[in-house]
């Protein structure tokens, strides 16, 4: 006999929410953020300008956004999931249209105060929309094709738009993150096999859509030392920097590769290289360890949640974070091509910081509202 249970849950008061906030995770993010600021300080040859100071301010602002998102009731996020996704998708289209009308690739929308990169926001938007969609699919119907068309479109529409920008890194993250959500939702493994086979078949077609510089990056990845002063330069110099760091590193502010400008993009995509050069294997493993702790928090929060939407959302955000970390580190150490994905909380950049911290806000919202129950069709939302 089925135990009847109530949907919904108590509306917690603000103070209660604040107390139940996941302070350990906040502290952990603070530590990682501090490492990032330290690296940016070093990237500017030991100066707060031009990066470290701005990054610190952004980190503060993003932390406030995170807290706000955490304190907002999860049911609110459930309610606006599709709307949020829709708005971001429109922004992506807007960017695309303006890029076509204007000159060259334009990934930004200038809101005057800050510039918004819709492709970054889409990483969260897609997770929200997928979490809500799969929350509404009963376990026995998950394999049905009719149930998979919409979520596939949720991923592929923005992925194609982003790829046209062209931003291979973000497109890759959307597809891999979306795939992970499908997997978590319980889609049959053979269906993945079919998709994978289809994807492989589409490679020659996709190749034609890649820009020359993207093709070059892949060639370069396959044989980086072939062209050490040309396209392979970034990759090779990055490996030299990391390798020469050795076990213990050259010391804070002492990285020769970074400070003598052999290392490109040292404040953004290649900041991990600089960290590995200055702090060595020990430093880089410690940073990876910090990220793993964050992932553990993410999984733990997912498992503690008593609603499917929350669990999917928490896992989706964790996977998203993982993809940032893995793609970035794997690219700078030369095990995947250079695709332009920042290292979360450490690379210099406003939108990525805001996106990641907003994601953590949602994660914490899942934690605070872990006992809220939501039905397949939104029962309990009100």
């Amino acid at each position: 006999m089925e135990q009847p249970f109530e949907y919904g849950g108590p509306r917690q008061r603000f103070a209660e929410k604040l107390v139940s906030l996941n302070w350990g995770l906040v502290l952990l993010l603070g530590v990682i953020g501090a490492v990032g600021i330290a690296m940016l300080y070093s990237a500017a040859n030991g100066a707060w300008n031009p990066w470290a100071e701005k990054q610190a301010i952004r980190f503060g602002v993003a932390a406030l956004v995170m807290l706000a998102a955490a304190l907002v009731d999860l049911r609110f996020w459930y309610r606006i999931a599709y709307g949020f996704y829709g708005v971001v998708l429109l922004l992506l289209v807007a960017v695309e249209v303006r890029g076509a009308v204007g000159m060259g690739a334009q990934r930004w929308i200038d809101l005057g105060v800050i510039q918004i990169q819709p492709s970054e926001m889409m990483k969260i938007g897609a997770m929200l929309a997928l979490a809500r969609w799969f929350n509404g699919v009963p376990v026995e119907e998950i394999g049905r094709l009719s149930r998979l068309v919409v979520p596939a479109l949720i991923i592929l529409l923005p992925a194609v738009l982003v790829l046209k920008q062209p931003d291979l890194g973000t497109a890759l993250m959307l597809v891999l993150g979306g795939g992970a959500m499908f997997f978590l939702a319980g889609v049959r493994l053979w269906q993945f096999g079919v998709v994978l086979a289809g994807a492989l078949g589409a490679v020659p077609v996709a190749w034609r859509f890649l820009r020359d510089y993207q093709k070059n990056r892949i060639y370069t990845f396959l044989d980086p030392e072939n062209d050490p002063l040309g396209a392979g330069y970034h990759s090779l110099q990055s490996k030299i920097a990391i390798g020469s760091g050795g076990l213990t590193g050259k010391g804070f502010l002492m990285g020769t590769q970074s400070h003598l400008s052999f290392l490109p993009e040292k404040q953004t995509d290649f900041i991990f290289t600089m960290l590995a050069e200055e702090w060595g294997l020990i430093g880089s493993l410690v940073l990876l360890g910090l990220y793993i702790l964050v992932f553990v928090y993410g999984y733990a929060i997912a498992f503690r949640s008593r609603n499917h939407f929350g669990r999917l959302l928490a896992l989706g955000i964790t996977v998203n974070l993982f993809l940032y970390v893995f793609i970035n580190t794997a690219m700078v150490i030369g095990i995947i091509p250079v695709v332009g994905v920042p290292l979360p909380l450490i690379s210099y950049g406003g939108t990525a910081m805001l996106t990641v911290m907003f994601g953590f806000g949602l994660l914490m919202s899942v934690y605070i509202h872990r006992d809220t129950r939501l039905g397949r069709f939104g029962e309990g939302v009100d």
Partner: protein
Amino acid sequence: MGNKREQARGKLLTRRALLLAGGQLALLGTVAGRLYFLQVVQAGRYATLAEENRISIRLIAPPRGRIVDRFGVPLAGNRPTYRAVLVPDQSGDVGATLDAVSRLVTLTDSERRRVIRDIRAKHGFVPVVIRENMSWDEMARIEVNTLELAGVSIEQGRIRDYPFGDTVSHVVGYVAAVSEEDLAGSDDPLLELPDFRIGKNGIEKAYDLELRGTAGTSQVEVNAFGQVVRELAREEGMAGQEIALGIDMALQDLAMKRCAAEGSASCVLLDAWTGEVLALVSSPGYDPGDFTNGLSQATWQKLITDPLNPLSDKAISGTYAPGSTFKPLVAMAALDSGLVTPDTEFFCPGQFQIGNALFHCWKKGGHGAISIRRAIKESCDVFFYHAADVVGIDRIAAMANRFGLGVDLGIELPNARTGLIPTRAWKLATTGVTWQRGDTISCGIGQGYVAVTPLSLAIYAARLATGRAVAPRLVRAQGAMTADGQAADHISADFAPVGVADRYFTVVRNGMYDVVNEPHGTAYHARIDDPAFAMCGKTGTAQVHHIARDVRDHGIVTGTSVPWKDRDHALFIAFAPVAEPRYVCAVVVEHGGTSGGEGGAVAAPIARDVLLLAQQRDPARRVPAEPFGAPGKLAQE
């Protein structure tokens, strides 16, 4: 919607989530493993690559050694040059800065355009040259105002400097940019420096390695743009060696002025005891400084089209028929052979006939019965026709070689020539025609195939003066003479005897004494009146064109009535003082100089004045109080 289904969904999710977590851990493990591989296993290799990236070895060019005269007067030195450079990054407003600069030193529009173009083409931190080779005044004006000229600074360099310009150009030579052939022939890394200059002629070329010195190195840290961040280590090179020449600039200067006044001429002054070259002049000269930064097309055209041929060092590479200056040599050969004695007389009716060929004496009426001493004094052609005919060309040639004619003298300069002393074998081998008696007759008066250089004439005169096989040298291995220690600086000149009996030398020297000091001597008007400084000498006139016999029959056409380039060369050799000859001089004035005169008229006065000053200064024995007031500022570097 039942609780069970919800639980089943939760279980599925958990299972899948754990699988996913496992996959993620594995991927991060790959990253960690790769990091271990890069940072531990291959750390050494990458550490080396990083060092190679950042450390660059820069060469430091050593200062080139100076070339000085016998008393240390610099003939080639290094002058500091100044150039103004602009670092656009430090300038802020490049246009305003250039405006400010042009208020101090005028910049032309094209200079300005070039600067702007250079700035656009380079990184902002790369210094762009505003003005090269600035004068001291311009440099000072900018230096004083650097506070108002953001990003402008003065760089100091060195440039080869030749304070005497064309006066000693052929001896000193010049430096110029390194050519492809220079690079191919040497592995000295200095040659690859963009501003490096290499000796291309004269002593600068012959002693290039000594003057050059060895490169220093500076180990610098550079960034990815090649910009030097700091110096890590420095190893000083060795400055080039100073080369002291035997040249006395005061004598060189006098000789050059006198030669230049005659157009194309050369003069060699030797210390016969040591072989030191005291003056080596070829006029006109050129300014070696013009070559340092590359000749302009106009300058080059002017140099190579000049009929006086300034680029050629006529003193060592010009070859001339010695004319009558060859007669003492023929006399030596004749006396040494024993076929002619000091008292042998030949009759000079004014001409000499062999078969159908008629050889004239310069004196239409002839000299009558004449013996060797007077034949030298009055330069009787017929006597020497007879003497040469009796002795034969091969004896003459052998004697000529013993006196340094037609042989390599080993002077330390590139492009020296030996001249030509013909023999029977030579003529047969070269022309395929056997030697004719008439050939010998021509050679008897220094015409025909005989060709000598002014330097070899001076050596020949020195050997006549001393009886020893004097050999020339330009470079003083012992360095410049100093007033204190080695003032006299006697070098034992262990030259081997020429190997002709002293009494024959006496006869010939007496003849040469008479040439200058006795009335009717061909250079009597060029004598030195002070008996202590008196000289012996021999005039000569070398035919440039074979003058047709009919012209000869009506007397030799001289003076300005024939075109300059067809006129005869005027020659003179001399040594002094008479009692104990030490200073030896040879002068060749091409085409008789501006007056078209003969050896006695044009060349002898030059030799006289040079020999007189040489004896008054006596540079072989002492350092004069005032070595030579060199023109212009002399770099002491």
